[in-house]
Structure formats: C-alpha cells, structure tokens
C-alpha cells in the first residue's frame, strides 16, 4: 500500500481516501460531496486538457480541478 495524491492517480486506478489536507470552503466542499477518509474512489477520466479530473465515488461522478485534487491523499494498492 502506498499513499499518493489524487492528482498522480492514473485513469481507472482505484484507491481509498486516507486524508483530506485542506480546510476552509474547499475542504468543506470536498467533504460535503462524500470525499471523506475511508471512501473508495476511482479515476474515471480527465478533461481534454487533462484538467479537471472526473472521479467516481459512492456511485456518482464528481469533478475536481487538479489543484483541488492535490489536497486529497489516496491509498492505492
């Protein structure tokens, strides 16, 4: 098991969130959408310019800018 930031994840790679390293509005928004430690995420794809990233969590699709995904630490197998 290795911990990486969500930005570094490859397409179709899955992992389990281990930490959200940001507070304030951004941290709150990320958590409100279900990105909390323990949640399983899978990279669904990236926009044509490689940013933002689309991820799959709790059965729905969520998009984040890369600089926002930088705050999400994921444990990948």
């Amino acid at each position, binding site marked *: 098991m290795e911990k990486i930031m969500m930005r570094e994840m490859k397409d179709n790679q899955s992992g389990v969130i281990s930490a959200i390293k940001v507070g304030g509005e951004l941290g709150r928004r990320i958590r*409100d*959408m279900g990105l909390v430690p323990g949640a399983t995420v899978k990279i669904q794809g990236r926009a044509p310019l490689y940013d*933002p990233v689309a991820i799959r969590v*709790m059965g729905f699709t969520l998009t984040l800018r890369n600089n926002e995904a930088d705050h999400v630490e994921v444990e990948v197998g």
Partner: protein
Amino acid sequence: MEAKIALAGNPNSGKTTLFNELTGARQHVGNYPGVTVEKKEGTYIHNEDKIHIVDLPGTYSLTAYSEEEAVARDFLVNENPDVVIDIVDASNLERNLYLAIQFLEMGVPVCIALNMMDVAKSRGIEINAEKLSTLLGNPVIPTIARTGKGKKELINAATKMAQERKKKGPLTISYGNDLDEAILEMEKAIKASDFLTDAYHARWTALKYLENDKQILSKGEKSNPSVSARLEKIVEKVSLHLQRTLNIYPEAMIADQRYGYINSIIKQGVLQQKYDQNRLYTSDKIDKVVTNRFLGPIIMIASLMALYHFTFTYSEIPVGWFESFFGWLGDAASTHLPDGLLKSLVVSGVIDGVGGVLGFVPLIMFMFFGIALLEDSGYLARVAFMLDRVFRIFGLHGSSVMAYIVSGGIAGGCAVPGVMATRTLKSPKERLATLLTVPFMSCGAKLPVFALLVAAFFANNEATIMLMITLVSWAGALLVAKFLRVTIIKGESTPFVMELPPYRLPTFKGLAIHTWERTWQYIKKAGTVILGISIILWAMMTFPGLPDSRVQEFENMRETVKMSAEATVIQNLVTIGESTKLSKKVEDLQNQLIVIDRKEAEEGLRNSVAGRMGLALEGVSKWAGFDWRTNIALVGGFAAKEVVVSALGTAYSLGEVDPEETGSLSETLAKTPGWSPLVALSLIIFTIFYAPCFITVVMIVRESGSWKWGLFSMAFNTVLALVLATLVFQIGSIMGILGS
C-alpha cells in the same frame, strides 16, 4: 387543511420535477430578499387540502459558504414551515442522506421522499424504506417524480406530520469523545444564557461554532459577545487538541463523522447492492465518447453551434411577427394621431421602445428552451468540465462559455439573454465577472454598425475585418474578466468540485415551465423600468426642440420652394400616391422639400439634449477621431446599438436610415471630410467596448442584484472604449496608416 411545506434536496435529485408535478402551473418565481437566489413557490390543491409549497435551492449541505445554502437554512429558521420534504435520490443514497442528516440535526420536521426508485432498481440497488424510516425516526416515502408515482402518499405523510406538529428534538450524532465533551460544555453555556435559543437548538449552535460558521458566529457576536467569546474559547481549545492528536480540524471531523453515521445506518440492512458501486452505467459509457479528448471538443462545438442556430435562426420568424405588429401599430398611430409631440412620444418613445424590448421575447424563449435542454439533460456540466481549464486562466468558470456564445461570441447574438444565461453559473465571483464582460461580444444590434463602417471603408476586406471584430471582442472580454478578477472582484476561485449528473431525458413539462418563467420575468421588467428609460431616451433626443423662430424659418423655406413651383405641380404633389409615376418637376419639388425636412431634423437633433451632449463631448472624443455627429449617434446607441446607424443618418441629414439598408449612408460617410478608414476603425473599437444598451444594463442590475454593477458597466466600459479608440486613432495618426 392548509399547510406550508418546503421542498429541499440535492441538485439533480428530481426536486424541480417533483415541484412541477405537485404545483403544475400554479407557481411563481421571485427572489429571496437581498440575494440573487431564486425563490419558487406554488400551491398544491387536493380535496380540501391547500398546501403552500416553497422550492428551496438545491444544495448538498447547509454551510454558510454559499448563498443558496444560507438561504435554505434561514428559510427553515425564519419561516418555520410545517414540514420539510427532503427529496433523496435513491440511486445515490449515501451522499443524499448527508443533507437529510443536517436537517434532522437542526430539529426541523422532515419527511423524506425516496425518489428515483426506478433508477435505483435498474442499478441493482434495493432500499428498505421502512427500515430507513425506523432508523431515522422520520417518514420515508418511495417516489418516482417523473411519473408522479408516490406523490399522493408523500403528501399524505407530510400533511399528517403537519397536523401532528410533534415537537421532536434534534438528532444527536456522536462526534467522538473530544468533540462530544466540547459540545456538552457549549450546550450548557448556551442554555444558561438563552444564547440564540429563540432561533436555534443549543446543540446546533454549538455545532456551527465548531464548524466555524461565519453567519452564526457573527449573529452570536451581535447577540451576546461574552457568551460568544466563551464558546469560541472552547472551540479553540478542542481544535488545538484535535490538531495535536489527530491532525484534524473540528469542521473536518464533523463532516467525516456524519458520513460515518450514514454508513452505519446503511449497513443495518437499509441498502442492498447487487453490483459494484462504482461500476459504469450507460451514462458513463456516453461520457467516454462525449468527453473524449478528440471527439469531445468536436461534439461540444457542434452542440454550441446548434444551440446558437436554434436560438437565432428559428426565433427569426416570431421576431418578424413582433416587428411587423409593432410596425403596424406605429403606422396606425402615425396616421391617426395629429402631428406633434404626442405623436412623436407615442410612436418613437412608447411603441418603438416597447416594441424593441418585446422583440427580444422570442429570442429569450428560444434561448432558454435550448439552455434548459442542455442543462436538464446533463450536458452543460460536461461543457463546463471540458472548458474549465481554458476559462480558469481568466478567472472564470467552464460554464461561462454559454453566456459568451449567446451574447455574440458567434457574431449576431444578444447580450440580454446572455446576461440572463449566467444563471447557470453557481460560483458568485466567476458569475459576476462573466456577466460584466458578455456585453463586449458582437451582438446582432452592433452588426449593422460594423457593416456600415466596413462597407464604407473596408469594402475589399469585409470578411477579414468581421472576423477580426469577433476575435477582438473575445480577447477583450476575457482580458477584462481577468482584470476584474484580480482587481475589484478578486479572490480565490470558487471550488470547482462539481457533480457530473447522469444523462437524463428532460421532460417537456419541465422545459416549458422553465422557459416560461424566464420569459415572463423579462416581460415584467420590460413593462416597467425599460419603458420608463425608453421614454427618457426619446425625450433626450427630442427636447428642447428648435426655437419657434427657427421652425418658422424652415416653414418659410418650404413655402418659398412651393411658391416658385407651378400650381399644377403643387396639385400633383398633394394627390400623388406611391404608385403614381411622378413627372420630373413634381419629383424635383418633392426632393427639395425632403432636403429641407432633413436639414430641420438634423438641426433639431443637434439642439436636443443628446445633441448638446454630443457637442460637449467633442472635446474628449476628438482624440478618438469622433465629431459631434458620431457622438450623438453613440449616445443614441445606448437605447439600442442599431440606433447608431439611424442617428448617424439623421445627423448627416439623410433622414431616418433603415439599419438594414445603409448604402446611401456609407457612401456619404466615405465622401465626408473628417472620415477615414482610421476613424472607422476607431469607431468600430469604440462600439465593441462602450456602455451596453440600457436593456442589458437593466438585466445586469437584475442579475447582479445591485444598481452599482449596472452603473459600473456603463462607466467602466465607456472609459475603456474611449481609451482604446483613442489609442487606435492616435497611434494610427502618428504612423500615418489608414488616413484618408
């Protein structure tokens, strides 16, 4: 019975569909006081039940970070609805319960509509509604809003709750030892001094202090500073402790624990899942194509072109009907009213003004229908996703593109629906920057002005110049947006964190209601503010009229011309119809009279308030190469940009020039001393950037929620336009290019 019910829920949970299903056409849209968030209300009538329903904005949470969430929260506290129906997407239960839990924590009576049961079923998700109801201690009713299934049961359950009006305490969730202890301590302090207890439960206030909720903190500060300070001290202590031991802020801990609580409920046999939760469905397969690196942009351009085509081509026919109707009305008024001020007011002020404004109605209807289609189907979110990288550079949001396109990003749009289209943007700063810069686009009313100037001075490079104009508009709009975002609308960009909802086939009812709402709002505005301003503009271009002595002189000139003609010619002049072939002499006489009329109109305009402004502005405008005639035309352009053309016609004694037929005017301009290709270029630049027409200004005021931004756009844009035009003219003059 009568009851007041609030509808709440996540975006894309089917909330609006349920609202439409319940209220049908019995709804109206307003605004919450002081904010630009829409307030939708309606009535549901069934047997003796008359239920007042308020559709709260769709939210994922109840923080104070966004206007929508604050509004929803305040509504529950201030208006105290009998029941809150929380629409929960059954195919997405975990995330949707997150909001439900927060309602329960507030202690409001909640009835849960477990919506989209059909979608959930098709995804192999089975939900035990009874079990969920027992665990939450609130009614849970399965529904399918699209077909109306479960609607009656839902209303029955809600009205039953409303009748019972049982006071239930707020839901208590454990947030871990440290936080629980702090909450208890805070609750005690809150209860002891009745701190904000008239509005909120003690526990809820404590939670909000822990969540560092700005709104509640400032309320508390105002109500009782010493208790507030004490609470903040407790928060500070536990916060430090949590950071030291777990490296986490209380706010984060609370969100995590809420999801933990939801998870524990779901695991108690509420939810059975046949497939892997993150497996791909049809919608995701569509996305593989639609947001593909190569196909995605092509499909997007095609869709945006289609939207544009749909809005501006198909609306031409009804726009034509409006035009002919108001044309007919104007003619009728012209023939039946006696010559004079009243006629001028009715024809040029009221009918032209209202006609010009209502002429946009079909446009707005078509555009909102198109946008609603893209939005309700889920495609708009994909457009934002794909374009965000580009627009973010300028401090905007991926969703900004729609407003730019509609405003004339593809030449020929209109800024009025463009400004209204910014509603699809949920980020306040990005939205403001977008709506202030969309008027730079080449709208359909600026095109006749460009066409006139290009025909007169750049006839050989027509296509190139028109393309350049479009590019300059885009570059200008994006750069100004960037400028605004680093100066007066500066600040971190709003988090992009956005759901890509599954593709859904929009319902016609939903589209129709949505379109009608927007259109009606526009018509209401048109009937009041816009009519008033249009009369003021008419007055500016009419008053003060020429002094009587001067009018008499023109009359004398006409008499002299007539006197010199033969009696039979005069006779013919009076009786000629349009089809009669005129004899040479009659024609000559008529032309002489027309020349006098036009001279009089020119002098009248010069003497009017607008004309005097034009003259006064010559001191400044001469640096950009404009004389007073151009200035008057530009002042007139504030009414509507195509007026620039007709006003130039009057100022050059050519009579009223039809914006569609500018041949004679462009010939005149090309020959007039003082005009050169350089002046034309400078005027083109000025026209792109200067103050939007007043209808757009009124819409900016409406959409931004403040007159301040309307006035700003008038002043800022005009100064910017003047600076740019002056630069073009001065640099061009010095370098000696494009001079005549």
